[in-house]
C-alpha cells in the first residue's frame, strides 16, 4: 500500500476517535463515562500530532492532556457528591444559549479556516525532532522567557489554592 493511502486510513480512524469521543462526552448520561470519552478524543489528537510529524507535541499531549488533565477531571468527578451516584441528563433549560454559542464558535472557526492563508512549513521546521526541540528550548529561554517563568508562578498559585480549598473542607 502506498504511504498516502495508509495516511488517509489512519487519519480517518483518528477523526472517528476524536469526533466520536467528543460526541460521547456530550451525550453520555454518566459524567464519569463522559470523562473517559474525553480521553479517547485526546488520544485521537495525539495521533494527529504524530501524522504531522510533531513528536514532541504528541508526547506533551499524551503526558499533559491524557496523563494529567483527564486524570484530574476524573478525580474531580469522583470527589463530587452526587455526580457519581445517579445518571443524569446532560440538558437543562439553558440548552438553547449553549447552542447559540456553539453555532457562533463554529462560524468563527469556519471563517478563520477559509480566510487565513495557511503557510506551508519550511524545510527548517521539518528538521529532525531533537533539532526542533533544541530550537524550542532556545526560543523558550530567549524571547519567551517571561511566559516560561510566569507558568511556574501560575502552577504555584494553583497548588496553593487547591491546598487551601481542600484543607478548608476537611476542617
Amino acid at each position: 500500500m502506498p504511504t498516502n493511502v495508509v495516511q488517509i486510513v489512519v487519519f480517518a480512524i483518528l477523526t472517528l476517535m476524536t469526533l466520536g469521543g467528543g460526541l460521547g462526552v456530550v451525550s453520555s448520561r454518566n459524567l464519569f463515562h463522559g470523562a473517559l470519552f474525553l480521553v479517547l478524543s485526546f488520544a485521537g489528537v495525539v495521533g494527529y500530532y504524530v501524522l504531522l510529524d510533531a513528536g514532541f507535541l504528541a508526547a506533551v499531549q499524551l503526558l499533559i492532556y491524557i496523563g494529567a488533565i483527564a486524570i484530574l477531571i476524573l478525580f474531580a468527578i469522583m470527589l463530587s457528591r452526587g455526580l457519581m451516584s445517579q445518571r443524569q441528563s446532560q440538558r437543562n433549560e439553558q440548552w438553547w444559549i449553549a447552542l447559540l454559542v456553539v453555532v457562533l464558535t463554529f462560524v468563527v472557526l469556519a471563517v478563520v479556516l477559509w480566510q487565513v492563508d495557511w503557510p506551508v512549513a519550511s524545510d527548517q521546521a521539518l528538521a529532525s525532532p531533537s533539532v526542533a526541540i533544541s530550537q524550542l528550548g532556545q526560543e523558550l529561554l530567549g524571547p519567551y522567557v517571561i511566559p516560561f517563568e510566569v507558568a511556574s508562578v501560575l502552577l504555584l498559585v494553583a497548588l496553593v489554592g487547591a491546598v487551601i480549598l481542600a484543607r478548608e473542607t476537611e476542617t
Partner: protein
Amino acid sequence: MVLSDFTFVGILILVAVLLPIVGLGLAWLIRPKKPNPIKQSTYECGIETIGDTWVQFKAQYYIYALVFVVFDIEAVFLLPWAVAYHQLPLYALVEAVILIAILVLALVYTWRKGALRWS
C-alpha cells in the same frame, strides 16, 4: 515516510488491541455457556461485595493529582531547556533554576501545610 518512526508504535497498538479481542473472542466462541447467579456474581477476592461501587472519594486524592500535574508540566518545560543546554547562555541556567525554585516552593508549601499527609 513521515510515519516511519511511528510505524512501530502503530504496530504495537494494533497488536495490543487485537490480542485481547482475539483471545476473548476465541474463548467466547468455543466455551460452554451455562450461566447461573453464583457464576455471574461480582468477584472480589472471594468476599461478597459490600455497598455501591460509585462512591464519593476523598478530596485528598485531588491534591496528589494536582502536585503530579505541576511537576508533569515542569518536566515538559525543562525538556527543551535540557536539549538546548549546550547552545544556551549562562542566564538560561539561572532562569531554569528560578523555575525549579518556584515549583520547589510550591512543593514545600504543600508539604509544610500537611496536605501530603494521609489523614
